[in-house]
């Protein structure tokens, strides 16, 4: 299981190679990318901060839970930190399974859970200011701390 929080660029091929198995007929890979705008505001770049040791621990727990839930043959989660320019990859998730449906479902579930639970924060920097984007705003939903605190 490939799990990493890093300030280095993320390479999809590395995650794909980590989950490729002879029993796997399907691999799904997700890349979170820095967009050039958010809520109509032009973004210059992003800065990601992490609680690295807990982030890696949480990513590993979620990757293992995904393998259990969706009967995967492999999973990998990598998150980048530091300054990221437009178009760069902030999050890289790869899963493999015997068949395709499990990979799409597991990939989507895993990305949702990572965004809910992994202690990483994103700061948007515009031409004329900056702001930490936190929780509900980034999720587009009401905050649900009860379920987050379940663990």
């Amino acid at each position, binding site marked *: 299981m490939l799990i990493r929080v890093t300030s280095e660029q993320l390479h999809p091929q590395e995650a794909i190679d980590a989950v490729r198995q002879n029993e796997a007929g399907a691999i799904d890979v997700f890349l979170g990318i820095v967009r050039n705008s958010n809520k109509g505001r032009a973004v210059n770049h992003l800065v990601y901060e992490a609680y690295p040791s807990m982030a890696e621990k949480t990513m590993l727990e979620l990757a293992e839970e995904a393998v259990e839930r969706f009967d995967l043959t492999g999973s990998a989660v990598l998150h980048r930190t530091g300054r990221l320019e437009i178009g760069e990859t902030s999050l890289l998730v790869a899963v493999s399974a015997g068949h395709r449906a499990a990979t799409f479902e597991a990939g989507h579930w895993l990305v949702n859970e990572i965004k809910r639970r992994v*202690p990483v924060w994103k700061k948007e920097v515009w031409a004329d200011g900056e702001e930490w984007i936190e929780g509900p705003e980034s999720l587009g939903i009401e905050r649900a701390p009860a379920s987050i605190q379940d663990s």
Partner: protein
Amino acid sequence: MAITVLFFASLADAVGIRELSLSHVSGDTVASVRNRLVETYPQIAEFTPTLLYAVNEDYADEDTPVPADTTLALIPPVSGG
């Protein structure tokens, strides 16, 4: 006999500190440590409605015990991905 406290993101900016060491008090919980911190750093108060907590890298409730030599992280709503 200390507690290490970690601040992140907007909360670290508001407090101006990323990490501090606090004396441990017998019977400490997440809430009791948080309340002592608010006395020193009142700007934490506005964060508490949405704050999450981790004790030694596990999410914790307000009444989770905080033994000595523990790391308590104050976690604003996360926004990774």
